[in-house]
């Protein structure tokens, strides 16, 4: 299946792109994050981030479906 990733803020800068798409077998957000964290050198573990699937906050362990859009959400400014 195909998963679309969009990057914002620090992850966009670290990935060097605003998004990419991946061909995968069955996967969950946490698995996709680990793969991409290794590829792009993202420092924080997934437990420091939140994740959105199709523009809604989602669980890191939800199974993904073909065509899903993933966004990893670093901590927000908070003040």
């Amino acid at each position, binding site marked *: 299946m195909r998963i679309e990733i*969009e990057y*914002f*803020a*620090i*992850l*966009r*800068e*670290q990935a060097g792109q605003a998004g990419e798409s991946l061909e995968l077998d069955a996967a969950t957000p946490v698995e996709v994050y680990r793969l991409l964290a290794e590829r792009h*050198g*993202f*420092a*924080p573990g997934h437990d*420091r981030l939140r994740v*959105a699937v199709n*523009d*809604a*906050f989602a669980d890191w362990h939800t199974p993904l479906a073909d065509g899903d859009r993933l*966004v990893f*959400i*670093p*901590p*927000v*400014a*908070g*003040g």
Partner: protein
Amino acid sequence: MKRFALADRPVDTRALRESLADPGCGGYAAFEGWVRDHNEGRRVRRLEYEAYPDLALAEGTRVVAEAMERFSVNARCVHRTGDLAVGDLAVWVGVSGAHRDEAFQACRYIIDEIKRRVPIWKKEHYTDGTAEWVNCVACAAHS
């Protein structure tokens, strides 16, 4: 009328306030976040706000709706994106209600939850030429 909006240019706070006018309301509380010239001991020259627009709009709208429901008030919030200079308005919250207590509480609730939950990130550019995404020290460590 949008309860929560993102704005890529200066915000007309007067028009926003007018939109909350109501003859049944005796109290109006507002909060504005301004770009400050310093943060944690460093001199700030300018800021950049970047939003994840779809989710920011959904979550911001949810926050304002929660406050309206919980405190029985009318409320709106606008958050800037893009490049801001020192002194610029970064976020505006306005609340009108029958009494001041609810207006204050709702206003505080909205700004606190917006800052905690809405995916908008802030990059500080310092006078020494460096820049940093705020509150993401661990993220930046390997950048």
